[in-house]
């Protein structure tokens, strides 16, 4: 999950999720970055609206009717 956390960190910091930025963050966390995983992550996230994706995650999965008490 390190790579994904790093990507979200960059996103939250308002930085672009590029190979260099990911590498820098991972190295700062003491991780030796795996080129292929970084490339794959950057490619996978291209065109993905992270804010939207996160919002969906935050939404209650299935809010059933709640009892008025």
């Amino acid at each position, binding site marked *: *999950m390190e790579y*994904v*956390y790093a*990507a*979200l960190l960059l996103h939250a910091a308002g930085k672009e999720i590029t*190979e260099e930025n990911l590498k820098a963050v991972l190295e700062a966390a003491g991780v030796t970055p795996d*080129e*292929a995983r970084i*490339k*794959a*992550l*950057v*490619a*996978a*996230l*291209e065109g*993905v609206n*992270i804010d939207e*994706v*996160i919002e*969906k*995650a*935050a939404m209650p999965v299935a809010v059933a009717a709640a*009892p*008025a*008490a």
Partner: protein
Amino acid sequence: MAHVAEWKKKEVERLAEIIKSHPVVALVDVAGVPAYPLSKMREKLRGKALLRVSRNTLIELAIKKAAKELGKPELEKLVDYIQGGAAILATEMNPFKLYKLLEESKTPAPAKPGVPVPRDVVVPAGPTPLSPGPVVGEMQALGIPARIERGKVTIQKDTVVLKAGEIITPQLANILNKLGIEPLEVGLNLLAAYEDGIIYTPEVLAIDEEEYINMLQQAYMHAFNLSVNIAYPTAQTIEAIIQKAFLNAKSVAVEAGYITKETAGDIFGKAFRVALLIAQQLPEELLD
């Protein structure tokens, strides 16, 4: 290379130059891609990648030459992936993005006998443009539930006629073409890509974006849960933290039957529901 024709030498030279001047070098198979789709592909790649179709032997020589001149022996391994009608695709694009672009650029193509399909082929339920005739029997022979309805051949239900990787039979190709179903894809098939000492194969390059989305959401959830559970406030979680504290307080007060403005409803509600549930189990003459 004394016996090699001059134009071949020049071509190898040119190819090697292309390989050397791009960080990412991919091999693609252009066999079976007709001229028109190929030129469309070139258009799509313009500005992003350089496509050079050549002979397999010359590509092999060029890769070896470039590998030697660059001092990058790993690059030479790319020759192991040459097959079909190979072409060089040189780019600055990350190999994963390149693969994605190639896949997205593929266009559907009509069925051809003897060719495997890239994915499951479904004959959809519903009316077809076909008029009644022997075609109905041909379809039924292939397991497609066809019937005549209102003067048209109609398919009764969605039917998978081929699984991914299965080969199209001449009979099926005939039917699929009549139905206008295009089960094949035309486009550049990436054979392998090289970047920075690593060879990437299509299995590695085919990433599941859905999975990445799931991971993003999971990572966000982790951060959210951590922030709320340890009460470390952030802009995104301060509301949830307040709500959690409030709900905790309310739950405790309700459980204790300690009535406040905020808990009166819950406590009386609960007592009343208990009474109701009990009343439901009582004989009718007991109820008011």
